[in-house]
């Protein structure tokens, strides 16, 4: 399976142990924080950089391989390129500072900055979702979803049924993959070529795969329903729960941290606080110092937390 949106990887980290409902909240909170805007470029780099640092630190804490995140970005490189071209040829109205020229076209600093901002946000979004899916089992995500959907019971939305359907679907994914493999082998043995050939024969090939899969899935669900009914399942009736989600101490920490980050960014943005660079220090030295500072903080924090864990 591809590394897009990261499959669950089993480690025992602070973030893995967090309650999935809390992780959902934190994910949303941090996503909003990523999209907050600031009045000046300096502020964007300083505050945006701080948020990014926080997220990278979380990734490291969760033992997510940053390399895998960039692998999923590889898929988006085309989109990124398109973005940059658009921004170059349609610069923002207040663009003034010219960086360089390509023939007769002016490439403004503002345009470059704008594209970088969008790309950075994209990267952070992917990092956040990977963080969630790599540290939370799909079934736990389902339980969290069920909990969030609970209020919908008021309008008679079948919350429990939806959650049960999703969890059964998840349980059967490996089984269905095996079955697809088996059917492909059986049809290949009859001369079906899934990889070469004209469009019409390849279409037929796919039909020879999908129909048996569908039919067996229908039979499977019938047998499963019979079994569930025989075991006394009634979605409308009262039933107890084996797996219960519990908030732990770590959840309070996580919740508070993310809330602070969200609140902080909103406050900084609304009050339009600005940090002005001293005139004698060129902007690029400042940026370098900033980047170095953030990397140092990330490394320190992760080292401290890891040592504390041992």
């Amino acid at each position, binding site marked *: 399976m591809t590394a897009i949106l990261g499959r669950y990887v089993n480690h025992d980290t602070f973030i893995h142990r967090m309650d999935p409902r809390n992780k959902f909240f934190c994910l949303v909170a941090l996503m909003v924080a990523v999209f907050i805007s600031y009045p000046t470029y300096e502020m964007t780099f300083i505050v945006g950089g701080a948020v990014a640092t926080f997220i990278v630190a979380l990734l490291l804490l969760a033992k997510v391989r940053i390399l895998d995140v960039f692998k999923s970005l590889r898929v988006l490189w085309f989109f990124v390129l398109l973005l940059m071209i658009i921004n170059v040829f349609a610069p923002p109205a207040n663009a003034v500072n010219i960086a360089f020229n390509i023939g007769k076209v002016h490439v403004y600093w503002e345009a470059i900055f704008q594209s970088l901002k969008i790309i950075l946000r994209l990267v952070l979004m992917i990092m956040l979702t990977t963080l969630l899916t790599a540290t939370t089992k799909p*079934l736990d995500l389902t339980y969290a979803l069920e909990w969030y959907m609970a209020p919908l019971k008021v309008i008679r939305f079948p919350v429990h049924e939806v959650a049960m359907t999703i*969890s*059964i679907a*998840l*349980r059967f994914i*490996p*089984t269905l993959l*095996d079955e697809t493999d088996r059917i492909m082998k059986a049809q290949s043995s009859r001369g079906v070529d899934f990889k070469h050939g004209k469009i019409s024969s390849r279409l037929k090939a796919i039909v020879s795969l999908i129909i048996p899969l569908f039919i067996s899935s229908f039979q*499977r669900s019938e*047998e*499963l329903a*019979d*079994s*569930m*009914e*025989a*075991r*006394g*399942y*009634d979605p409308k009736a*009262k*039933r*107890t*729960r*084996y*797996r*219960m989600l519990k908030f732990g101490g770590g959840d309070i920490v996580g919740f508070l941290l993310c809330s602070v980050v969200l609140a902080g960014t909103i406050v900084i943005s609304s009050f339009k606080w600005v940090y002005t660079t001293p005139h004698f220090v060129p902007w690029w030295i400042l940026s370098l110092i900033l980047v170095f500072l953030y990397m140092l903080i990330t490394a320190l924090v992760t080292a401290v937390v890891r040592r504390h864990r041992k």
Partner: protein
Amino acid sequence: MKLIEVTNLTFSYDKKVNVIDGVSFSVESGKYISIIGHNGSGKSTFAKLLIGLLEAQSGEIKAFGLDMNPQNVHEIRRKIGIVFQNPDNQFVGATVRDDIAFGLENRCVPHEKMDDIINEFAKKVHMEEFLDKEPENLSGGQKQRVAIAGVLALSPEVVIFDEATSMLDPRGKREVRECIKEMRKENPNLSILSITHDLEEAFASDEIIVLQEGKVVGHDKPENLLEKPEIFEKTSLDLPFKNKLIKELKDQGISLKNTESIERIVEELCR
């Protein structure tokens, strides 16, 4: 004590051919009954009728003093457990634990008691080391044992095995048969109804009911049925090895006195 009583049951899928045609019998406490018949004789339909997944056109089923009807079916299901043929298509939970818990959740067992029950019954089927394993990492025999644990955890009075070993390899078959043996030893009052076409399995039971084209053509203890080999020939089921050997030897003019076991037969032949 009669736990289940079936009287003149008739069922048809398409209203033309009767898959079950006027079947009558009863299940008593502590008995191990096998229902045999070739594929298509109506065996599996029978299991579904007993547990109320299908409704018969005529005749009646009485279980635990209640008539089988839409009002009583839930109460009846509390006391009957059923293990189906396909190990995958009855495994609901994400792990062994969750699957055994599924039945407990349905019966509103209190959350605090669940872990103890799950551990107890997983041990009974020797699956305690696999409690956190997912079904794709289990063999057919292991999955069927989990199904058995899930059924036993609800303390049924009758357990139905609907061709529960047909899809298993020899090892899986052995594991399930061992489970059934242990079940009987631990709970002598438990009634077992095994639907199968495997005669070696059927001959381990107390009573055999032979179905052919929806009708009962034989209902007796295994030893007694063997005195009437025509019944088996009609259903085109194969006799167990030992009995086949005795019959073939008889055809060759060799009558045996002691037919208790293959070892005895060999001894007698070599004298």
